[in-house]
C-alpha cells in the first residue's frame, strides 16, 4: 500500500479516536478528501520542480505514535536555548511532554493545540483563526486532516510575551520510521510582541518525516519574531509550511537556519492585509553531503505602503543541493510598495547545486522592487588578503563564509540565540577561531 493510500484509509480510525463534537471534526474530514484528490506533490508541480519527496515517501511510516517515550532533560538539554529563561512547549513523537515543558496561562496562553482544540474556552479563537490562512493543498491538507497537537500561542491585545517561547518536537525513533504532523497556531492580537524559536529534532537514526504547518496571525502593530533552527539528523526530513497573515503596521520576521537534515522544504507565505506592514524573511543554509534545502517563499503585497525584505544566503558543499524560489506579488492597489529580495549562494565544490528562481509579479506602477541573485565561489582575492595576514587557508575560508552569512545573523534579536547559531555555523565550517558577535 502506498503511503497516500495508507494515510487516506487510516483517517477513519484516527477520526474515531477523537471527539465527533469537536469544532474541527468536519474540517479534518474535508481536508483528507482534498489530500486524497491531490496526493503528494511531485516534480510535475511547478513549485516542486527541484525537490522530490519520492525517496522519503517510500518508507513505511508509523502514522500513530504507539507508546509514550520518556526523555531525560539532561539528555536533550543541549537542543534547547538553555542559557535564557523561556517558555517551552515540547513534544516527543508527536505527544506533548509536560515534564520537559513550561507553559503558561498567565496573561498570555502558551500551551498545546490539543487543549485549544478540545477545551471550550478556546473554541472562539479556534473558530476564528484555525485553518483560515492555511491553503487547501496536498501536504497542508494532510496536516489539517491529522491535526491534533502542536503549539498554541495566544497573545491578547496589548500584551508582550515576557520571555521567548521554544517549540521543540523530538522524534525518538522508538517506532521504525515516524511521520509527524505538528500543527501550530500563533495569534498575536493588536499591540503585542512575541518571540518564538522552533526546532524539529530527531534523536535516532531511524527515518523521520515531519510535515509541519504553522499559522501566524499578526493583528495591528503586532511584532512577531520567529526563528527556525533546522539542524537535524541525516535521516530526518522536514516540510515546514508557515502561513502568515499580517495587519496594519505589524512586523513579522522569520529567520530560518538550515544547517542539516535529509530533505528540508520551507514554504513561507506572507499575506499583507493592511498598510505600513513590514515582512522580513531571512535564511542561512549551510549544508554538505547529499543534503537538500528548498526555500519556497511568497510575499503577497495587497495594500499600499508596505515593505518586505528577503535575504537568503546559502553555502553548499560536496553534493548538497539547494533551491530558492522566491515570489513577490504586488497587487494593483499596493502602491508605494517597497519589496527587496536577495539570494546569494556559494558553491564550495563542483558537484554542489543551487537552483535560484526569483519571481516578481507587479501590477502596481508606483513601487520599488529589487531583487538580486548570485551564485559563486569564495572570492580568491579575499582569501589571499586573509592569508597574507598569517591566517591559514582553512580558517580564512571559514572567516569568509562566516562574513558571508553574517548579514542574516545581524538581525537576530535574542543574543544567546545569535551566539548559539554562530557557534553552530563555526562548528559546521570546522573552525576554531573565536568569533565575537
Amino acid at each position, binding site marked *: 500500500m502506498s503511503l497516500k493510500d495508507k494515510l487516506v484509509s487510516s483517517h477513519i480510525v484516527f477520526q474515531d479516536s477523537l471527539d465527533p463534537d469537536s469544532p474541527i471534526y468536519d474540517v479534518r474530514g474535508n481536508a483528507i478528501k482534498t489530500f486524497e484528490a491531490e496526493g503528494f506533490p511531485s516534480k510535475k508541480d511547478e513549485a516542486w520542480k527541484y525537490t522530490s519527496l519520492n525517496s522519503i515517501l517510500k518508507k513505511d511510516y508509523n502514522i500513530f505514535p504507539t507508546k509514550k517515550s520518556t526523555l531525560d532533560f539532561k539528555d536533550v538539554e543541549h537542543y534547547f536555548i538553555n542559557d535564557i529563561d523561556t517558555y517551552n512547549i515540547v513534544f516527543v513523537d508527536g505527544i506533548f511532554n509536560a515534564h520537559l515543558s513550561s507553559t503558561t496561562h498567565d496573561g498570555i496562553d502558551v500551551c498545546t493545540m490539543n487543549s485549544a482544540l478540545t477545551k471550550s474556552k478556546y473554541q472562539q479563537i479556534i473558530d476564528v483563526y484555525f485553518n483560515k490562512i492555511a491553503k487547501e493543498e496536498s501536504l497542508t491538507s494532510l496536516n489539517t486532516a491529522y491535526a491534533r497537537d502542536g503549539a498554541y500561542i495566544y497573545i491578547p491585545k496589548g500584551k508582550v510575551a515576557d520571555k521567548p517561547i521554544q517549540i521543540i518536537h523530538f522524534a525518538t525513533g522508538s517506532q521504525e520510521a515516524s511521520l509527524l504532523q505538528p500543527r501550530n497556531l500563533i495569534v498575536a492580537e493588536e499591540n503585542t510582541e512575541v518571540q518564538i524559536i522552533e526546532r524539529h529534532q530527531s534523536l535516532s537514526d531511524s527515518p523521520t518525516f515531519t510535515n509541519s504547518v504553522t499559522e501566524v496571525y499578526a493583528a495591528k502593530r503586532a511584532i512577531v519574531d520567529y526563528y527556525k533552527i533546522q539542524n537535524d539528523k541525516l535521516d530526518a526530513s522536514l516540510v515546514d509550511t508557515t502561513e502568515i497573515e499580517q495587519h496594519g503596521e505589524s512586523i513579522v520576521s522569520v529567520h530560518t537556519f538550515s544547517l542539516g537534515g535529509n530533505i528540508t522544504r520551507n514554504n513561507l507565505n506572507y499575506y499583507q492585509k493592511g498598510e505600513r506592514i513590514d515582512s522580513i524573511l531571512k535564511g542561512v543554509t549551510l549544508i554538505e553531503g547529499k543534503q537538500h534545502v528548498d526555500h519556497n517563499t511568497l510575499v503577497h503585497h495587497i495594500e499600499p505602503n508596505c515593505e518586505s525584505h528577503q535575504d537568503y544566503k546559502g553555502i553548499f558543499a560536496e553534493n548538497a543541493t539547494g533551491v530558492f524560489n522566491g515570489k513577490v506579488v504586488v497587487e494593483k492597489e499596493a502602491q508605494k510598495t517597497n519589496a527587496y529580495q536577495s539570494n546569494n549562494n556559494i558553491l564550495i565544490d563542483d558537484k554542489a547545486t543551487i537552483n535560484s528562481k526569483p519571481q516578481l509579479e507587479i501590477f502596481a506602477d508606483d513601487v520599488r522592487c529589487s531583487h538580486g541573485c548570485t551564485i559563486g565561489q569564495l572570492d580568491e582575492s579575499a582569501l*589571499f588578503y586573509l592569508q597574507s*595576514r*598569517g*591566517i591559514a587557508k582553512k*580558517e580564512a575560508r571559514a572567516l569568509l563564509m562566516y*562574513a558571508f552569512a553574517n548579514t542574516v545573523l545581524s538581525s537576530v534579536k535574542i543574543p544567546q540565540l545569535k551566539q548559539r547559531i554562530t557557534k553552530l555555523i563555526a562548528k559546521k565550517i570546522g573552525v576554531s577561531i573565536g568569533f565575537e558577535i
Partner: protein
Amino acid sequence: MLTVKNLYAGIEEKDILKGINLEIKAGEVHAIMGPNGSGKSTLSSVIAGKEEYEVTDGDIFLNEESILEMDPEERAHEGVFLSFQYPVEIPGVTVTNFIKTAINQTRKAKGLEDMPASEMLKMIREKSELLEIDRKFLSRSLNVGFSGGEKKRNEIFQMAMLEPKLAILDETDSGLDIDALRIVANGVNKLRSEDNAVLVITHYQRLLDYIVPDVVHVLMDGKIVKTGGKELAHELEEKGYDWLKEELV
C-alpha cells in the same frame, strides 16, 4: 633581508615580470616606481605569494631562505607583510578581532601560546595611538564602510601590530588626502628600525616626501630599468616616465 633573483612571473601564459633583480637590506627603504601596467602590483603579489601568479624562473629569498614554495600565510609567519591597495571588507568581524586572530595564528605557527589578553589590549592601545585611530573604529567591521583613508590607516595599523620584517606598501598613497597621507607615513616611519625593511610601491613621488627611500627603482615592462637614490623620484616627478623610455631605446 629580501633578495629577488632573476624573477620571471606571469598570469595565464602572459609574462608580466621579466627578470627582476632586487636586494633590500635590513634597515633600508626601497621604492619601486613605474607607469601603470609595468608590473608593480604583480611584484608585490608575487612576493606575498598570491596563487594565481605563476613564477616561471628565478627565486625570492627572505633572509637567505627561499620563500617561493611557501603559502601566503607561511610567508606572513616569516615576516612578510603586504599593505593592500584594495583591502577586503569582512562584515561581522571587527578590526580588533581580526587582528587578534592574525596575531594568534602567527604565534600558533611558531608554536607559541595565544597572546595574553592584557598584553594584546596594551599593544592595540599603543599602536592605535600611533596611527591616531579612534577606539570606536576598532569595534567596526573590518573595512566595511571605511573611507579610502580609513582603509589605508587600518592596513598600517595591522602592519604595526604584526611587526613584519619586510613590509610592502602597495599604492598606499592612492586615495589619501594630505592629512591622511601624513598620518600613514608617520606611522610607517615610526615603525622603521634596523631590523626591518620597507618596500614602497607607488606611481607618484608624493608619498616619498614623507617616507624617504634609500633606493629608488624604476620598473617598466616587467624589468627594473633604472636604480638610483631618492633624487631619482624627483626626476621622475618632473619629467615623467617617457624620457626613460627614450633613454632605453
